[in-house]
């Protein structure tokens, strides 16, 4: 097409953008007139003009005509015209509805033509456009082309990938059917091109419905095994720079990553052999010096390592993989160093290879300092974060801090978040934590987000023993003339709360503190100034001697008449408050902040958000090992009851409010004599003490019958049965005295919070109040020594976490007795146990892989660690106890389904005891976050 070439030359010769646009507009006008002209254009001219339009489009200009001519071309019988027509449609048509039926018509004819070249063009077009309309028209036809015996190989290849594209864009329109089994058998095809295309298709389909394609595992292993053991010339043109079928190998390894390790021993060992062969080949001298050779070889190697990590079951392979990556860390190719750092990040999360990864810490730190490419340094930061644990946290945090001084601006904020998380997570003492965060602000104040400085304040408020140190440290840090505004915020807040702790030293007397803060007041932003004003009023309470000074400041025009409403209001209100309130009132209003409720570290949430889910290696989830690992015992030691509120319990970024068991009130409740847990309940008259009722929760989680309340007068016992989402509780009231109880009544009520949360969730039907002997309906009496029975029917409508309360009221000896007891109706009561095989278990386990679906806790054993007792408790909890699932026989694994009226929630649990440390780790995975959390809370109290 000379005309096209001339046009392209013209465009290239244009000296300016304007000249180019002018030339293009001229051409567009020309083409438009040709298309509109009276003279019918022949195929060649059409083809030429359509090509020109395509070229103009590719230059970045909009094209709004010519589609019709392109459709004409693709319906032509001449191959070259058809080809250009299809190209134009493929490149320009996203979804142009008025033309799509015409295009589809052309495609339909070509698919039916039995001419392989035409069929391929049509299939390419479908795969390129992939629109819904095309899926509707062809999704059912393509599978039959793919598996038909007489289809040419090249058409099969196109059909396979065409189907893959349609499955990605409109999965609902691609029907599964008898063709699926035949597609799997394409893995055995003699033509490696067909196998390559089919493997991609099968992988995509297997990701969506693994069960249907399970048979592909053995075929894929067999195929892979033949490739890796073949001499490199066997595969002829599929050998690439002395590497046998690298693309196909990578795809097969990808396919295998859709499944857990094969259960069949022979198959499993064959796969292990393949992986070992691939690892061995990495050690062989290269067959060529070309980079293509090493790239192809290593592409297969990295994919094999990805599969090894995915299986996470062969310690030898994992450690070998880690050593191999360790070699790459020092390779002269930047690409390999980058990939090794990236791959090691995932290895760091396997129990088998975590320690092996840690041995490379010096190399990684060196990479952080010497790599010239920021994307490589970024990987090094990620890896340091992933390999960090208690043993190396100080070193890693220090290195990250020092790197931060020169780090690229683009990654500073992320490093700040990571340092903050690690410092918090692995803090042995608070002073190190406070120092680290203040250093962060000093080095990279601009990149310290609100979450980070909020967090340091929360922790200082919650930890008594660090407050003095924090006050002293911020005071010193504020001495720097150019301190960062974030430091001023932290400093203002902390001195306002705890300035009194350092006021004894004349160098940091109240007035000195105030002057220091106020010297920076005018240079900072409105929110910071507002915060400082609050610090000032706190000072007035803490230090009466500076009250006049501060009042003067508040009274100044720059405050009282400040243009900013918030500042003005604060100044006025604080000034008035300080003038009219008595010391006592002032002390009450301006009391020290109460401890913050524990919640998920907002920093971690922010990092997750920044990196996207799944990209933040979750260190807790990652390390499966409990037995023999000192890590966890150290980690949770401070949760020991005798120590003050623990550092780790507070600092650990958990996904939930702090478990009730950590709070001191409940611990003291736990110390009560177990036989009379409710002795003081009567004195409370109405609402039950939080501590006491919690014990009902704890004691009755794993059992259904027993006495829930007893004092000198009354005993309340329960027998309960549950089936699916229904339950029935028989309540027995025993009068222990020899006198009558008058006006005896009972009801199931709910507190305010229960009203809002529980009532819609749990329907309690008080059906049958059958009173013993001669009871009167209006004024029921319970005779001395008698027992009466009541039946409660319960239906679980949805998952819940609050517990219903049983209120009992009666008159004894002239006084009205009020008793409120929590009814032990917990979510786990609605469990149905589920038996399953190890394979099913792990498959479901993996399916529940979203971070929110998993809840994990590590806790100290409260009872002797007896296997039989634990078994009984897990069974009592309601799940099926699965033996032979966990590779470690000491661990407990269970499965069950929670039944509620509307849904059923599958639940998997794993409990790993560590007898040396007297610790447990409990992991729950369910499809619903709230359920995982609630079950974890309930069960973790039991051991």
């Amino acid at each position, binding site marked *: 097409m*000379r*005309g*096209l*070439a001339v046009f*392209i030359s013209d465009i290239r010769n244009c000296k300016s953008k304007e000249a180019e646009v002018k030339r293009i507009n001229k051409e567009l006008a020309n083409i438009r007139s040709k298309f509109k002209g009276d003279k019918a254009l022949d195929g*060649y*001219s059409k083809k030429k003009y359509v*090509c020109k339009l*395509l070229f103009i489009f*590719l230059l*970045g200009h909009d094209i709004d005509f010519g589609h019709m001519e392109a459709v004409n071309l693709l319906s032509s019988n001449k*191959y*070259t015209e058809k*080809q*250009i027509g299809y*190209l134009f449609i493929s490149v320009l048509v*996203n979804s142009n509805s008025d033309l799509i039926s015409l295009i589809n018509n052309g495609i339909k004819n070509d698919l039916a033509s039995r001419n392989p*070249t035409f069929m*391929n063009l049509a*299939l*390419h077009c479908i*795969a*390129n456009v*992939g*629109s819904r309309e095309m899926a509707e028209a062809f999704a059912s036809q393509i599978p039959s082309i793919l598996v038909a015996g007489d289809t040419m190989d*090249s058409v099969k*290849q196109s059909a396979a*990938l*065409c189907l*893959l*594209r349609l499955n990605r864009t409109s999965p609902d329109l691609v029907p599964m059917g008898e063709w699926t089994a035949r597609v799997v058998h394409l893995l055995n095809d003699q033509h490696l*091109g067909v196998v*390559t*295309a089919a493997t*991609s298709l099968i992988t995509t389909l297997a990701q969506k419905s693994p069960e249907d394609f399970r048979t592909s595992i053995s075929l894929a292993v067999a195929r892979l095994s033949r490739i890796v053991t073949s001499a490199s010339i066997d595969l*002829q*043109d*599929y050998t*690439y720079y002395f590497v046998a079928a*690298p*693309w196909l190998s*990578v*795809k097969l390894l*990808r396919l295998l*990553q859709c499944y857990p390790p094969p259960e069949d021993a022979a198959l499993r060992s064959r796969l292990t052999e393949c992986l070992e062969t691939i690892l061995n080949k990495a050690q062989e001298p290269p067959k060529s010096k070309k980079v293509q050779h090493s*790239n*192809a070889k*290593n*592409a297969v190697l990295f994919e094999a390592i*990805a599969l090894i990590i995915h299986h996470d079951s062969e310690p030898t392979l994992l450690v070998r993989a880690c050593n191999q990556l360790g070699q790459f860390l020092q390779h002269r190719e*930047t*690409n390999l*160093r*980058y*990939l090794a750092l990236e791959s090691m990040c995932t290895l760091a999360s396997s129990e088998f290879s975590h320690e092996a990864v840690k041995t490379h810490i010096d190399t990684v730190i060196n990479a952080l300092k010497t790599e*010239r*490419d920021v*994307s*490589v340094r970024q990987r090094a930061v990620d890896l340091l974060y992933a390999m960090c644990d208690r043993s190396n946290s100080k070193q890693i945090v220090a290195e990250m801090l020092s790197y931060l001084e020169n780090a690229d601006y683009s990654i500073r904020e992320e490093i700040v978040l990571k340092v903050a998380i690690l410092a918090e997570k692995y803090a042995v003492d608070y002073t190190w934590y406070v120092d680290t965060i203040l250093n962060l602000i000093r080095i990279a104040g601009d990149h310290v987000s609100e979450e980070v400085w909020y967090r340091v304040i929360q922790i200082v408020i919650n930890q008594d023993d660090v407050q003095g140190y924090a006050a002293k440290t911020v005071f010193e840090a504020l001495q720097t003339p150019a301190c960062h505004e974030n430091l001023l915020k932290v400093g203002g807040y902390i001195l306002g709360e705890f300035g009194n702790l350092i006021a004894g030293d004349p160098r940091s007397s109240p007035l000195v503190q105030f002057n220091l803060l106020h010297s920076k007041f005018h240079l900072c932003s409105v929110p910071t100034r507002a915060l400082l004003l609050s610090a000032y009023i706190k000072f007035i309470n803490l230090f009466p001697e500076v009250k006049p000074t501060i009042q003067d400041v508040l009274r100044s025009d720059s405050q009282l008449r400040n243009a900013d409403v918030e500042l003005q209001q604060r100044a006025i209100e604080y000034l008035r408050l300080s003038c009219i309130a008595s010391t006592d009132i002032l002390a009450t209003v301006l009391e020290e902040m109460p401890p913050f409720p524990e919640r998920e570290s907002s920093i971690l949430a922010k990092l997750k958000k920044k990196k*996207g889910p799944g990209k933040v290696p979750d260190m807790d989830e990652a390390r499966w090992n409990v037995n023999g690992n000192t890590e966890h015992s150290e980690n949770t030691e401070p949760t020991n009851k005798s120590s003050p509120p623990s550092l780790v319990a507070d600092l650990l970024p958990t996904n939930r409010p702090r478990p009730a068991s950590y709070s001191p009130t409940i611990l003291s409740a736990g110390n009560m004599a177990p036989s009379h847990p409710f002795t003081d309940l009567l004195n409370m008259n109405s609402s039950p003490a939080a501590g006491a009722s919690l014990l009902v929760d704890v004691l009755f989680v794993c059992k259904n019958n027993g006495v829930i309340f007893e004092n000198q007068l009354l005993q309340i016992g329960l027998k309960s049965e549950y089936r699916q989402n229904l339950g029935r509780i028989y309540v027995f009231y025993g009068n222990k005295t020899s006198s009558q109880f008058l006006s005896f009544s009972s009801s199931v009520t709910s507190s305010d919070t229960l009203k809002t949360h529980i009532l819609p969730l749990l329907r309690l039907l008080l059906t049958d109040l059958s009173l013993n002997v001669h009871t009167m309906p209006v004024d029921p009496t319970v005779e001395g020594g008698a027992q009466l029975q009541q039946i409660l029917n319960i239906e679980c409508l949805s998952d819940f976490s609050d517990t219903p309360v049983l209120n009992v009221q009666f008159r004894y000896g002239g006084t009205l007795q009020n008793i409120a007891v929590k009814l032990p109706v917990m979510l786990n009561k609605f469990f149905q146990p589920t038996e399953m095989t190890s394979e099913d278990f792990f498959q479901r386990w993996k399916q529940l892989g979203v971070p929110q679906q998993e809840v994990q806790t590590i806790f100290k054993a409260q009872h002797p660690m007896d296997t039989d007792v634990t078994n009984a408790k897990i069974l009592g909890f309601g799940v099926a106890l699965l033996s032979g699932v966990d590779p470690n026989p000491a661990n407990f694994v269970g499965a069950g389904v929670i039944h509620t009226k509307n849904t059923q929630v599958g639940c998997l649990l794993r409990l790993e005891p560590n007898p040396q440390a007297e610790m447990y780790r409990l992991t729950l995975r369910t499809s619903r976050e709230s359920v995982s959390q609630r079950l974890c809370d309930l069960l973790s109290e039991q051991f």
Partner: protein
Amino acid sequence: MQFMLLFSRQGKLRLQKWYVPLSDKERKKISRDLVQTILARKPKMCSFLEWRDLKIVYKRYASLYFCCAVEDQDNELITLEIIHRYVELLDKYFGSVCELDIIFNFEKAYFILDEFLLGGEAQETSKKNVLKAIEQADLLQEEAEVPRSVLEEIGLT
């Protein structure tokens, strides 16, 4: 693979292939961003980078940059070799290919790519098989081509 872009050192797009549905506007924005990002990188830098939630794999051949966007779990090295194999195919077809070949025969570059990659996945990795398919098509073309008048040939009609 989500898309492939070929662009010159001057930042001019020479070929673009999209395997995910995106509007023209998005495509233009993505191309502009990526071209800028990659041209700003120094020669010895790593061939991979994280970009939005994708991994970018790129390589420069003479004056042309080849750039692929793959998903998180995709294999970077094999993508690098996909680029190389495509370059080999172009080279073999055009006979020591240069940027001009791709400018003037852009449609051929597309046809070769379609034979090699489809739906973002390798369809046929054998160089011989891909070129055989293209040569067959060219044979059909020659048969179909009829002589044109000189005037038409130089584009004056």
